[in-house]
């Protein structure tokens, strides 16, 4: 081979090697980028699950907080101070004047359901005439759909055998966040 040909071949050899390295680096970069995107996708799906569990926890805590607020709680009206206890008489009075409390708790919906004992299968809204024996639903603030609810004791003073007794039932209070969905 002539020297000129050899020199040109050597130059091309170096250029070819540089091209090879460049393509390899591009390929490696794209591959690492794909791996990173895959890992990020996995991480985000985990974050979504965590966020969902956190929202559920917040809903439970908020329902519990409202149930224990002075407007709802039994306080010491039924003997010793109770937690997770809602005074049904208080709630029915609150329901009558709810317009003054619409934005008080920062939620868009509050509902109480009487779970036990009740023989009523369909939803019957409670009013001052039929509660609590002939109804099973107390809508404080109406809303379409609710977040999680928490169990509560629903207590009331009732007349039994000519004496006033404390009677507690099992129910659930449901809360709806404001501005969600």
């Amino acid at each position, binding site marked *: *081979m002539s020297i000129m040909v050899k020199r040109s*071949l050597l130059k091309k*050899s170096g250029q*070819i*090697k540089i091209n*090879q*390295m460049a*393509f*390899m680096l591009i*390929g*490696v970069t794209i*591959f*690492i980028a794909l*791996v990173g995107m*895959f*890992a990020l996708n*996995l*991480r985000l799906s*985990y974050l979504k*699950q*965590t966020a969902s*569990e956190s929202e*559920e*926890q917040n809903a*439970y*805590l908020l329902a*519990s907080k409202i149930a224990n607020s002075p407007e709802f709680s039994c306080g010491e009206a039924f003997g010793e101070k*109770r*937690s*997770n*206890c809602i005074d049904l008489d208080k709630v029915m009075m609150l329901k009558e004047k709810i317009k003054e409390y619409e934005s008080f708790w920062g939620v868009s919906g509050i509902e109480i359901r009487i*779970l*036990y*004992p009740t023989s009523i299968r369909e939803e019957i809204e409670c009013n001052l005439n039929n509660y609590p024996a002939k109804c099973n639903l107390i809508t404080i603030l109406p809303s379409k759909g609710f977040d*999680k609810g*928490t*169990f*509560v*004791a629903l*207590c009331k003073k009732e007349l*039994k055998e000519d004496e006033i*007794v*404390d*009677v*507690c*039932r*099992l*129910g659930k209070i449901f809360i709806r966040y404001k501005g969600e969905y």
Partner: protein
Amino acid sequence: MKENLIKKNKRAQDHKISKRDFYLLSSKTGQDEMVGFGLIIIVMAVIIIAFVAVMVNNNKENEIENYEVNAFVQSTLQYTTICKMNGVYLDVSDLIFECGNNAKCENQRESCAVLKGTLEDITSRSWTAGEEEYVKGYKFTIVVDSREIIIPIIEGSFDSKNYRDNPITELTKKSSKAEIYFTVYY
């Protein structure tokens, strides 16, 4: 002389051919290196993905919150039963201790029978358990002074590894101690 020249030329030509071959081999060596490096990168990427997958799976095992179960137990303990003693209708928490003493209600019903019936009704109304339901099963156990006072209330299956239970609820009355255990399987 001529033969020597011819031989020299042939050797020279062979030498040139071998240089060409050598050049070709050198360029192919670069390609081989590239392929080898690419394979190393692929293997490293697979290892990294496996590591990330294991890490994420470990992080998914979060502590399950028990607010709902705890609220259920606390609310159930306040439920007023049909058992009357000394002119007072007992709630579930008081009835537990009376059952521990094998006492009878004023209507001559066994306190333990009233307690078991009440708890069975309450749990079945509050938790719908079944294979196709979100709640697969539940178990309600009450122990007074280290003795199970009623047969545990069980519904559904307990094969699921996901469950929620209340922190042990302890009640004390006079010298007796009651422990309530409630576990829900998802």
